[in-house]
């Protein structure tokens, strides 16, 4: 999708925390990105690298953890393989996404002051 706005949201949230929590330099930023989120990692890294110049995040490495898509049946709860049109166990059409929608700043590694 729009990796630049995504990177902007990440960087501005972190810079705010950085100031409020009085962090030292940030060494690592870990994101969790679900498979349904249409994020192209190379573009996100590029945008992030551009936005953090001359900030306390300028040395931070960006680590993107891919979260796979998992689904289950909304009726009987059994795992629902991606290629199935209906629940392999009860035939229901109600499919729920369990993981794959994540778009989250998971954690940061910060240099002690």
């Amino acid at each position, binding site marked *: 999708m729009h990796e630049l706005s995504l990177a902007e949201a990440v960087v501005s949230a972190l810079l705010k925390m950085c100031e409020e929590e009085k962090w030292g330099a940030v060494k690592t930023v870990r994101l969790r990105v679900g498979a349904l989120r249409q994020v192209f990692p190379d573009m996100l890294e590029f945008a992030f690298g551009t936005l953090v110049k001359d900030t306390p995040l300028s040395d931070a490495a960006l680590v993107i953890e891919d979260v796979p898509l998992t689904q289950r049946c909304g009726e009987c709860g059994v795992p629902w393989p991606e290629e199935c049109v209906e629940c392999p166990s009860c035939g229901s059409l109600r499919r729920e996404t369990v993981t794959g929608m994540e*778009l989250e700043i998971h954690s940061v*590694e910060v240099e002690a002051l």
Partner: protein
Amino acid sequence: MNRIITIQQSVMAEDEKFAASIRDRNARMGLLMVNIIGSPGSGKTTLLEKTALQAGLSMAVIEGDLATDRDAERMARIGVPVVQINTRGGCHLEANVIEKAMESLPLDTLDVLFVENVGNLVCPAEFDLGEDFKVAVLSAPEGADKPLKYPYLFTSARVVLLTKIDLLPHLSFDMEMFTTDVKKLNPEAALFHLDSLSGDGVGSWLEFIKIRAREKKANVR
């Protein structure tokens, strides 16, 4: 020693707050909000014109486009309250912009608020505007392979509309593949085929919207 600080915060946290507040207000007012998403030229505005003229609903539209207020003019011409948002290049609408646009609409007189998102099958699908549901609009000339190529939209929409079906005789549109792919991505989606200009098939769509609007009014909390 470096410290690891766990944050676990959604990247969209700021915008999710706006979406939640819109959803909350609409629930209190019994106002149905529908987010219309499709490519440029897929027939979103024409569909909304037809809906305004035939549904017998009190509706308003928020139009999202990179430039011009042409879509807003079209809606205003038929007496629909409308706000045009120009994103100047932005590929999608976000909830904070919608909240501001809603301020200039007569919300308490409405049954349905439509948001016509920026023409794009990718980004708009990812931003929660506080709507009740998304509608994916695909016109027949775009091709039957689009659901699998742009799966996020078709997975997250509650309604899939195939428009311009009057052109089908002139196209090599594989209807069986299209239907199978949509069902595979989203077994519960309501799928309608229509031609907004002649009105063919529009009735089922209008009926769907009217029922949803009534349900929303009936469930005011």
